[in-house]
């Protein structure tokens, strides 16, 4: 369980970017834990990347409420797997609500302390004022067209995570593209999985663009548990990095619509190209989850990382869910805090590798290649 920062500081954090060790059949075993927003979003596009990559063994898809309610996300995830010819990938519905946070409080905090608007981070997903309720599942638009015939597994996502990591010690990468509710539950129910996990990749938090992002402030308690747990390796994509590339930059969308196969071409045409043409001022979203997927598929695209400590504010006020960062390697010189003889992180802060740069050209090449190559259907 929680290791002290001092102990963690001495643990080996060898290379700035991880080398993808081959799992079974040379593939990287990965659990995809995500607030899977449909019909097309950074969540969905990252799913497409992982499904299209040859070197990823997708052990299962877990959903968690955030961008949408978990039931709606699950409906999208199941049907997307059908459309992509991958019905054998099991889907597990995870937490339908954050550990502690509620919509009423999130709304009240915004009224009292102001919404988070710096860096346009006020988004509340399924806790937005006009969002529907937990059990409503809306019909899926074309090209989804209808609900899937395949069904979600009866097991909760947290149990699947525990079982899978125990069965594949030191081999499973946790891709956490939503709030860490499922991961935190798994770590609390089975602390033994923490040292058995190969790597956690998470999208959220920020230093310059904003002090937080929805994956953190939607369930701040889960984020605090997740960051503090002491995973062997925790890789973070911050909003600062994600903001460097947007989906519509460099004519990616038009190229994909023209060259991709169904259903990818249809998704990009309907939900990126058409809105973009209807509103040329539209700013497409940054690519946070795509970057996480890129890190899982081809980590060498990232040019560097900073070793840092992170902790989360869980005070029930305007700072709920803020991220705090500390340098993992204080320079020991200059006039900063280190000259005070004190540069310690919070008592239980978690150790993370914060990706700090990427080769945009290679990222674009990988992304476009994955989107336009033939659909990677299952062999069966």
């Amino acid at each position, binding site marked *: 369980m929680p290791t002290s920062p001092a102990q963690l500081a001495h643990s080996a954090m060898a290379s700035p970017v991880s080398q993808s060790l081959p799992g079974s059949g040379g593939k990287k075993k990965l659990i995809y834990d995500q607030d899977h927003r449909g019909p097309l979003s950074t969540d969905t596009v990252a799913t497409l990347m992982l499904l299209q990559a040859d070197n990823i063994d997708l052990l299962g898809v877990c959903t968690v409420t955030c961008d949408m309610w978990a039931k709606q996300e699950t409906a999208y995830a199941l049907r997307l797997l059908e459309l992509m010819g991958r019905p054998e990938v099991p889907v597990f519905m995870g*937490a339908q609500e954050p550990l502690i946070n509620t919509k009423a409080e999130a709304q009240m905090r915004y009224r009292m302390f102001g919404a988070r608007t710096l860096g346009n981070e006020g988004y509340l997903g399924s806790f937005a004022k006009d969002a529907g309720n937990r059990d409503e599942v*809306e019909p899926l638009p074309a090209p989804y067209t209808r609900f899937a015939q395949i*069904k979600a597994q009866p097991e909760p996502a947290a*149990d699947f995570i525990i079982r899978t990591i125990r069965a594949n010690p030191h081999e499973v990468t946790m891709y956490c593209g939503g709030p860490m509710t499922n991961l935190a539950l798994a770590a609390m*129910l089975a602390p033994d999985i923490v040292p058995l996990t190969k790597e956690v990749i998470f999208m959220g938090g920020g230093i310059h663009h904003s002090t937080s992002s929805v994956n953190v402030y939607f369930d701040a308690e889960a984020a605090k*548990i997740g960051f503090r747990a002491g995973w062997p390796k925790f890789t973070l994509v911050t909003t600062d990095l994600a903001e460097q590339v947007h989906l519509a930059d460099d004519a990616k969308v038009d190229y994909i619509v023209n060259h991709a196969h169904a259903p990818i071409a249809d998704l990009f045409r309907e939900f990126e190209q058409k809105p973009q043409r209807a509103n040329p001022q539209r700013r497409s979203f940054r690519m946070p989850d795509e970057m996480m997927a890129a890190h899982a598929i081809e980590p060498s695209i990232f040019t560097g990382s900073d070793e840092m400590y992170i902790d989360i504010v*869980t005070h029930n*006020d305007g700072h709920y869910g803020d991220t705090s960062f500390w340098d993992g390697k204080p320079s020991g010189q200059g006039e900063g805090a280190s000259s005070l003889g004190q540069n310690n992180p919070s*008592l239980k802060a978690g150790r993370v590798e914060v990706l700090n740069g990427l080769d945009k050209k290679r990222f674009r090449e990988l992304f476009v290649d994955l989107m336009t190559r033939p659909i990677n259907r299952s062999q069966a």
Partner: protein
Amino acid sequence: MTTTRREFIKTVSAAIASSQISPTAMGAPTLEPGVFPAQSGGRRKVICDQDNSGPFGTDILGTLMMLQADNIDVLGMTLVTGDAWLKQEMAFTLRLLELMGRTDIPVYYGAEFPMLNTKEEWLLRLQLYGGHRADPWLGAFNRNNGGPQDVQPLPPPYDHFADIDAQHDHAVRFIVKTVRENPGQVTVYAGGPLTNVALAIALAPDIVSLVPEVVVMGTGFHAFTNTFNMFFDPEAARKVLRAPWPKLSIVPVDIAEEIHEGDEFAPGRRMIEEIATRAQSPISDLFQRYAIEPLRHDPNLNFFRMADEMIAAQVIDPAVFRKSEPMYVDICTTPGPRYGDSMFWPQNGQQRPETGAPPVSSADRRVFVDPSQFYMGPPPSAGLVNVLQEIDHDRFKKLFVDLMTKPIRKTRSKI
């Protein structure tokens, strides 16, 4: 949004619910609040979720009451770190069940740590904000306590570790599975921090409507508001107290403080003397060694309040409580000086709680402005719970002494 569309969505939702998502997650029967369903053989099925800290004390005595009551069917015990570390509690619990001849009751390991709270941060908070004066107890996190792996040998009459073992399944999965298999029938006795119960409802929110009653020890109005079971794991407490259970009954410290283990049963005769004299082994041994002997060394000994004994009474014989009131409750989870503090609001929003000795007499409570000018209700998401407010002292003491002194109720007979 038109009605037609909303209805369409509902229909589709129902279709999805029945086809795609876990069947256990919905469509389950729900209970009317306050309805206690008839049970096979007239016994109330109970899961005892407890920080069962030995060798003696309110945790153990509450457990003994549950084991001794004829109308209670203990389906299992689930342990949680609180007054002691989980593994030490397990050692005491298994051996206690052996001594009581109740090795048929399965025992499960639960959460070894609170959700977010840590010992190191707690000790720093106490230094930064000042310590708890009214109840300084930190349980497993007491300054000089060992770590979670530190299991001490068991003193007499436990003498040695049990031959029986804990179950392999996790406490949380046992709770979820048992409640689903017995919808509307399993009462949850929660005598410790609420970590296990919180994890169970986070993992399986559908069980909330299937539990006829959760009985919780903790919170307070006047004696003090920051109580151990709540501030050991405030996030778990907040989650459990907010969940829409058909019924959640809570024993605040104010009532628990009204009766202490060393109190008199009849004039000149203490409950502990009555029990030590009349009870069978091992109950008589426990009282002799851990109540009568300490009292002999220190006649002014302060015995502990009867906290978990009272939640046991609420499960075994709820008529012991003469008054209760539905109130809103919430637990502060902001990690400041009030981390874990309990707050109450009357259901109608305008009254003050009446439990215990009020700090100001009713006569002094001058209403000098129109209360309708103020918002006095609960915060959003606060839970509505059944707060036990008045206890029949004689009936409670009789129940306690009777249960402790009746013949040991060995192995549960299946009906």
